[in-house]
């Protein structure tokens, strides 16, 4: 566990964690405002709760406090890679369906997609520090083709993606705070006294 032990690595890790927490916070507020715009522009009912959408990673997790640092990062990275694909699909559909008519929504979607991509890259940085194997490669992991859905189902699916992304932003901040507390490189679970 060479690099993880040196003080500079710990410092770098804590710095990455705190910057990641700020990124997640910004992303969450942007996703919340995007959600408002999305609901309004797509004519949806704000109170509509969308059942779990296939292909959208779920933020809620059991035994959250028992997870190790590396596992947290891996789950986060998998989620944001999935969101990157889902948001790119949403952006493509947005252009196809509305063209230039709703540029504002398109720009807001693109902005959040950029943040999700940046956050995924940030997680990869952390994983390089955290685990000697580094982040899992994405080669060969072709993005699943979007399911053939009617327009209304796509609107609901988009709502589900954004709602879940907002949840993930909260979870990521908590995960990174948790990670910042752990001793570097430990994938073990903090003793109960240390748990948040």
């Amino acid at each position, binding site marked *: 566990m060479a690099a993880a032990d040196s003080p500079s690595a710990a410092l770098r890790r804590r710095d990455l964690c705190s910057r990641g927490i700020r990124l997640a916070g910004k992303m969450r507020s942007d996703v919340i405002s995007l959600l408002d715009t999305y609901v309004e522009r*797509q*004519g*949806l009912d704000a109170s509509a709760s969308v059942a779990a959408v296939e292909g959208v990673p779920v933020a809620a997790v059991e035994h959250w406090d028992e997870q190790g640092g590396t596992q947290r990062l891996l789950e986060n990275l998998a989620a944001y890679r999935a969101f990157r694909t889902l948001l790119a699909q949403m952006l493509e559909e947005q252009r196809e369906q*509305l063209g230039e*008519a709703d540029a504002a929504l398109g720009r807001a979607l693109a902005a959040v997609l950029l943040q999700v991509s940046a956050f995924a890259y940030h997680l990869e940085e952390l994983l390089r520090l955290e685990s000697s194997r580094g982040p899992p490669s994405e080669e060969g992991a072709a993005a699943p083709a979007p399911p053939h859905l*009617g*327009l*209304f189902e796509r609107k*609901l699916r988009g709502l589900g993606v954004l709602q879940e992304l907002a949840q993930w932003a909260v979870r990521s901040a908590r995960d990174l705070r948790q990670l910042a507390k752990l001793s570097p490189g430990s994938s073990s679970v903090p003793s109960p006294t240390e748990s948040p």
Partner: protein
Amino acid sequence: QNLKCVTHNLRKMICAWDVSSKGRHGQTDFCYTTNDLPSPVCFKTKEKRVEIPVPESSTMVTITTNSISGAAFATKEFEIHKTDISFVPLTPRILGLTPDFSTSTLSLKWSDNGSVFPYGLDAFWQIQILRKEATEKVTQVTYYSKLTHEDIILSWNWTSDMPLECTSHYVKIRCYINVTQFVGPKDWSDWSPVEEVPGKDTEPSGSGVFPQDTVVAVGSDVTFCCVHEEGQQIQRMTYGPEIYPMIHLSSRSSAIRVLNASASDTSGTNIVCTLAEGVMDGTVLFVGYAPDTPEKFSCETSNFLIIKCTWKAGRPSGLYGKRRTKYSLFERISGKNVSCEVNEMNKERVCGFPVLADQKTYDFILGVSSPIGQTESSLLVDLTERVHPKTPEKLTVFGNSSTSVHLRWFINGSFAEIQLLCQIEISSGHSERKLHNVSMPGGKFSIYTAQLNTLHPYTKYQFRVRCSSADHFWRWSDWSRVEEHTTLEA
């Protein structure tokens, strides 16, 4: 008793009779004769109906019923006049009933069985469309045709007021043939067997809201239906923010009817079917305007490389993305077709078409189409009469004389086939602006020159130039930049 004769084809008739129920009957002896028969035709039958020729005027019939052992029970004679014979066409045969779900249209095909009848008879076909297990009549129409002594396949289309997926549709048909020279009673045929187009509410996994993601014109009336699983209950169906009263179609399908739909938002109007436990299904309706016929359709060239066509933007269609209004330029003489990139969000309407070698005249059709409708405008132009040169560039003024100067400029474009007319504007201080016209042969991406004389010595002048076609004036180019020059002292 009750001998009745019916003909289906004017040549043969089927005569049927009743027999009193007393005693057990064996075979029947049936004889008939007409004026043009040498002797009666007789035969035995177990049936109580026979098929015999339709007489020219009348037929004498003798029916003898026998006991099981063959002993004659009773004999009765009938005279059947032509006026007693009924004419009832055979039941029409439906050849095909084809649904087009995208247009909610049923296409019915049937044979008119015309070969059986003389040429030229009028035939009337009553067609019924039904729903709800063929119990509710939706519409009945009468279709007319003329028989041609051949079997012709007739077809008829019907567009439903609701998507065909919503519930099963049934069709049946009957006919009436107006045989003018037939003196007996004439009647409608029987109804054909019912043909069915099953709805999604008969399919195990047919749930959904229909029509799916369709486009209609503003003011349309649209019926939406929600097909769900057996036993599920629809809590409400909404169109946009409004809850609509539901129309029961079947145990698995209910509909709402939206009248006079108004223009939808950019992302369309949602039609949501909320079932129990908040489960939602839905569709999206896009309501927009049909494209206007382009006005002020005009084409010109600024460089003899590209023809730039413009037109006045019509009313916005309210449809975007892949449903937007699409434009294409078709040139009839060359057969060349170009699709135009038009951004509905801004007012400009421009489309470029390449200048074709050795073609001076262009016969354009600007095609406009959207999911709601299409239209077009046409324009015939002689390109040499539609030259609008680009702004002259790199204007330079030089000269080492007190009363004359040379001007030089460049025009981006290929004008080798025409004569150019250029106008030089001369102004200096307080004196009045003067215009000097000069014409010159056009060139290919050329530099053009002109000389001005009779200027005043030691005077500061401002010059600028613009050009147009000398042969057929269409439009001036924009003015070039101003260039200053002071003449030498005398």
